[in-house]
C-alpha cells in the first residue's frame, strides 16, 4: 500500500508572499501524485497531477509542484498567494499499476493573511 505525509498541518502566509506546502509519500511501486484543494463546505477539486514525463507540473490558479523521486516528495508551490487561496490542501497518491485506490494525506490548512 501507499501512504502520504503532509508535514505541516497549518501554514499562515502573508498575501503576495510565496508558499510551499510539503508532501512526502511512501510506496514500493510507481505512483501517480495529486494535489487537491478544498474550500470551506465544499468537495475537493483537482489542482494538479503528476502522471509521467516532466517532473515540474503546473496546475490551476498559479500553483505548481515538483516530483522528486529520490526524495519521494511532491511539494506544492505558489510564488505569490492571494486571499482567495485560503483553503485546505490535500496531497494524494495512487499506484500506477493498480490505481484503484487513492491515499490522501491529512491535509494542510493554508491561511493567507491580508
Amino acid at each position, binding site marked *: 500500500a501507499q501512504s502520504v505525509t*503532509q508535514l505541516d*498541518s497549518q501554514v499562515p502566509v502573508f498575501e503576495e508572499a510565496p508558499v510551499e506546502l510539503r508532501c512526502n509519500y511512501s510506496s514500493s511501486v510507481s505512483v501517480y501524485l*495529486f494535489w487537491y484543494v478544498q474550500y470551506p463546505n465544499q*468537495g475537493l477539486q483537482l489542482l494538479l497531477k503528476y502522471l509521467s514525463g516532466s517532473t515540474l507540473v503546473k496546475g490551476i490558479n498559479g500553483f505548481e509542484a515538483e516530483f522528486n523521486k529520490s526524495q519521494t516528495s511532491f511539494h506544492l508551490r505558489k510564488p505569490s498567494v492571494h486571499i482567495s487561496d485560503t483553503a485546505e490542501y490535500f496531497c494524494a497518491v495512487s499506484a500506477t499499476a493498480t490505481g484503484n*485506490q487513492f491515499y*490522501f494525506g*491529512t491535509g494542510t490548512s493554508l491561511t493567507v493573511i491580508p
Partner: protein
Amino acid sequence: NAGVTQTPKFRVLKTGQSMTLLCAQDMNHEYMYWYRQDPGMGLRLIHYSVGEGTTAKGEVPDGYNVSRLKKQNFLLGLESAAPSQTSVYFCASRPRDLLKETQYFGPGTRLLVL
C-alpha cells in the same frame, strides 16, 4: 451536466438507527468511491466500485455496506449508526483511464450520530 451529487446534504441520526447515502454521477464513469473526512485524518476510503455490480473494501469499511446496482449510482449504508461514524462523507467518481481524468468529488454529506 450535474457532475457528482450526494443526497442528503445533512442528517442527524440516533445511535442504532440506519440510513442510506446516495451518490449519483452523470459522467458515465466506471469507478466510484466513498470516503469519510474527519478532522486531522484527511480522507479515508470506505468502499469503492470499479463497475456496475462490483464493490470492494477500502481502508475503513467496518460498519458500512455499499451497493452499485446501476452504473450511475453508488449507495452507502449504515445498518446501525454509532457516534464514531459522525463525519463528513464524500463520494467521488472517475473514468477507468486515470491518464485522462482524475476523480470528481461530490459536495459532501454531513452526518451527526447522537
